């Protein structure tokens, strides 16, 4: 669990079938941690989503309904409609985990960083 800079201290005692639960505040890169996971539950930040999808890990995005004009939902909805991930709010997360079929998720074709870099090269006059 990455808990960011929140004051909330989660209960890390083993329970509900998990033999080991760990919480940390922030890491510069979650890549290694993500690599070792079988399922990733993440907020809808583009960075975290892309990282998980890059690693071809099944992903559930949980949206935060408290942010000022919540744009995170847009991305989660779009990628969910395209069939790359599941998304849910906190309330329905448990039900989703029970009913989801991870094998139905499609593989994400990769993000547009390369195309963006090509456009920047063109705009700057580099080949």
């Amino acid at each position, binding site marked *: 669990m990455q808990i960011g800079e929140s004051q909330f201290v989660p209960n890390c005692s083993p329970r509900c079938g998990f033999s080991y639960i760990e919480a940390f505040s922030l890491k*510069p890169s979650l890549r290694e941690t993500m690599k070792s996971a079988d399922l990733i539950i993440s907020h809808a930040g*583009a960075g975290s989503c892309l990282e998980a999808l890059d690693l071809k890990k099944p992903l559930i995005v949980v949206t935060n309904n408290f*942010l000022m004009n919540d744009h995170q939902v847009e*991305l989660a909805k779009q990628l969910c409609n395209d069939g790359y991930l599941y998304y849910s709010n906190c309330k329905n997360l448990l039900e989703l985990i029970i009913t989801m079929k991870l094998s139905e998720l499609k593989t994400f074709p990769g993000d*547009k960083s390369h195309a963006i870099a090509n*456009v920047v090269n063109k705009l*700057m006059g580099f080949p």
Partner: protein
Amino acid sequence: MVFPLICVLIYPIVVFALIRAAYLVVFEHGKGLGRKVAPRNAAAKTLIVLGSGGHTSEILRVLRHLDRANYAPRVYVQAQTDRISRQKVEEFEGESEDYRLHAIPRSRRVGQSYLTSIFTTARATLHAFPLIFREKPNLLLCNGPGTCVPLCLVALFFNALLFRETKIVFVESFCRVERFSLSGRILYYLANHTIVQWPKLNGSRYPRSIFV
């Protein structure tokens, strides 16, 4: 005696800069890829705006695909409250030495109200003036953390006043599918080019943007 004199001298300069900035925004910016760009032989000094949250990861993903020899030196700017971006940049840059990192005050916290945002943005703008003036970047690359608005504003000001050519390129975040961010709505006009990743931010409604 000195103060009114300074006011009288500064007034026409600022008015000139504002008029020329308005001209640039209306007639020069947002021309897309249609316009021919002269091939560049020298490396482009690049100022990259980092931001808390996913912005830093996203912009570094783009930089990974750029030839670092062409985009050198790289000047990274981060918000002072940001603790994680420095680590990400250092990890990304590895052994290279042609980069440096600056910190400026944050212009807007996530969730901060629009009214107080105006004051914090003004404070960040004051820090942006000496930074942009000294660095004279050829390219200002940003993807929309609040910090990038004052930097782009100041870069546009110097472009207008001193006939500099800092190319301001704004990449709207991947997570903006249907609507531009607050920074995006501003930078859509301030930036020379706006790159978007979803079709709804392009087309007849947003003819200035480049859809990839």
